[in-house]
């Protein structure tokens, strides 16, 4: 087994990106993800890479657009308010079918909000974030190890499907320290014959573009993109199940909320309540299958979130509202503790909360 090193989540993302072959990083300072930029600023010059502090989040995402157009692995990271600014770029990346990795270490909102952990950008991330019909692959790590693993995976998926992969983390994931193994199986990067690297007078010119003024053509482009999205849904959905098989009460939670919930599930089991946990790892595509299966035996679901209830909508859709789905949440930078989740499990088990 490979040696483990103690790292912050944000640093694990940065190191994993370098291991995955990313040599271009652009960002703008914002708490609580600044360690990613600081790590890149130290490392990139020493390995022939490029770290550049952009003048804004908008510029940073467009620098990403430029490097991606030129066919190279590239990333940016930010936190909630900064991701809103990147929204324009995310839409253009999707419209031009460009791969990229974007990290959102979420903080409480709306507006300037706070700087403490949050999961309230779930809608923004899973519904695209910018204008137009599109999706990003949204990956939700629940440990520092996964911060690293999903970063490597994110680059692979981005290249494979010519999409943006977003790591949707939160302040705790970014700041917490855990032992990490950085021993990854790095796949070769696919050829990118569409990239604008100069024709060398050997081929027709390549165009990277999201403009399409003929409605019939734009419709076809959108339809084709969604066929690709269907492939992603079919092939790339990831989730973890914990004590789901015989469970009456099933918690849906991702990231830090899932870790807290696991403790509550264990405690509930001790008290004789058959509780379980489904932890989506891909938030888009949302893992519908485990919910469709579990709703056949579960009495109720509880969505545990650091938001006013966003993923709960996907849980209701995936379970077709066949049984009650309730929300257990904290917001504004607060995190539910296992006692709160356990209380929620007991109430739901007693039929006390609808």
């Amino acid at each position, binding site marked *: 087994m490979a040696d483990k090193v103690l790292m912050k989540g944000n640093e694990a993302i940065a190191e994993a990106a370098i291991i995955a072959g990313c040599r*271009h990083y*652009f960002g703008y300072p914002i708490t609580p993800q600044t360690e990613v930029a600081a790590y890149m600023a130290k490392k990139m010059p020493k390995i022939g890479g*490029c770290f*550049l502090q*952009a*003048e*804004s989040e*908008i*510029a*940073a995402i*467009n*620098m*990403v*657009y*430029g*490097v*991606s*157009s*030129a*066919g*190279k692995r*590239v990333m940016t990271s930010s936190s909630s308010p900064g991701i809103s600014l990147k929204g*324009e*770029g995310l839409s*253009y990346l999707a419209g*031009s079918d460009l791969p990229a990795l974007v990290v959102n270490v979420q903080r409480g909102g709306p507006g300037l909000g706070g700087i403490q952990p949050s999961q309230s950008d779930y809608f923004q991330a899973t519904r695209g974030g910018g204008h137009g019909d599109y999706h990003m692959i949204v990956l939700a790590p629940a440990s520092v190890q996964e911060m690293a693993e999903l970063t490597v995976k994110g680059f692979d998926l981005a290249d494979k499907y010519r999409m943006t992969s977003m790591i949707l983390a939160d302040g705790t994931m970014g700041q917490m320290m855990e032992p990490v193994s950085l021993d990854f199986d790095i796949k070769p990067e696919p050829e990118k014959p569409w990239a*604008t*690297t*100069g*024709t*060398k*007078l*050997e081929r027709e*010119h*390549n*165009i*990277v*573009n*999201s*403009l399409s003024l003929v409605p019939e053509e734009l419709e076809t482009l959108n339809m084709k993109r969604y066929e690709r999205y269907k492939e992603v849904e079919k092939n790339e959905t990831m989730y973890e199940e914990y004590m789901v098989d015989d469970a009456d009460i099933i918690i849906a939670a991702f990231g830090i909320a899932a870790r807290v919930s696991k403790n509550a599930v264990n405690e509930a089991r001790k008290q004789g309540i058959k509780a379980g946990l489904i932890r989506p790892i891909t938030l888009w595509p949302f893992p519908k299958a485990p919910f469709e299966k579990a709703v056949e035996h579960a009495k109720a679901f509880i969505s545990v979130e650091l938001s006013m209830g966003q993923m709960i909508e996907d849980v209701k859709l995936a379970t077709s509202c066949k049984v009650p789905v309730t929300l257990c949440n904290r917001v504004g930078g607060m995190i539910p503790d296992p006692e709160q989740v356990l209380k929620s499990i007991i109430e739901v088990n007693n039929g006390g909360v609808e």
Partner: protein
Amino acid sequence: MVVFDKPHALIDVPLHYCPGCTHGIIHRLVAEVIDELGIEGKTIGIAPVGCSVMAYNYFNCDMIEAAHGRAPAVATGVKRADPENHIVFTYQGDGDLASIGMAETVHAAARNENITVIFINNAIYGMTGGQMAPTSLPGQVTQTSPYGRDTKHCGFPIKVCEMLSELEGPEYLERVTVNSVKNIRTAKKAIKKAFQNQIDGKGFSLIEVISSCPTNWGMTPQAALKWIDDKMIPYYPLGVYKDRSAEKEAE
């Protein structure tokens, strides 16, 4: 025998520009320079949002269409992806470069980003139908300044070359126009220098081209060219605003 032909770097398709618009001339100058410097195979152009949004269909080199105003940031990415092998230019209008994309423009210049910027200043938003631009002249009538640009209400035009010349960063800034054969020759020289600077690794070069928009100025093409002499050039004087290499040599 000299035969008049299209530059190789310009694709032989009809341009969509209005009759009398000077975009065609400027496209040609850029393409001639790319040919003469033998850089078409390594050049990547960035088109803006605005009248020249479809420039990607006209230049034979690899092309990227950027979001409105973001071309210098996109160009930064493309250049930094392979600084040794990429020649990168942006082609931007006044709304794109001096309004929505001002931050990207100023910071690319401040970083002395080794790119070439072709800046078309025709004092109006053409594509959207003739609204007031950041470079519209005081008193100029546009769709969104129907009583003439009132500087008390919406301020003054931005003189991009003058403003950028105050920065340490940029290598070369020149304002030219293309309303006469003589001026076209000067413009071509400036554009060539802007590309040569990039080849030589000297850094950020911006050529502001005072251009005409007969359609939205509501003039004949000829009257529009005269309006450049009568109104635009007095406000936007032609000339070199910064040439760091020349300044160094002079010292």
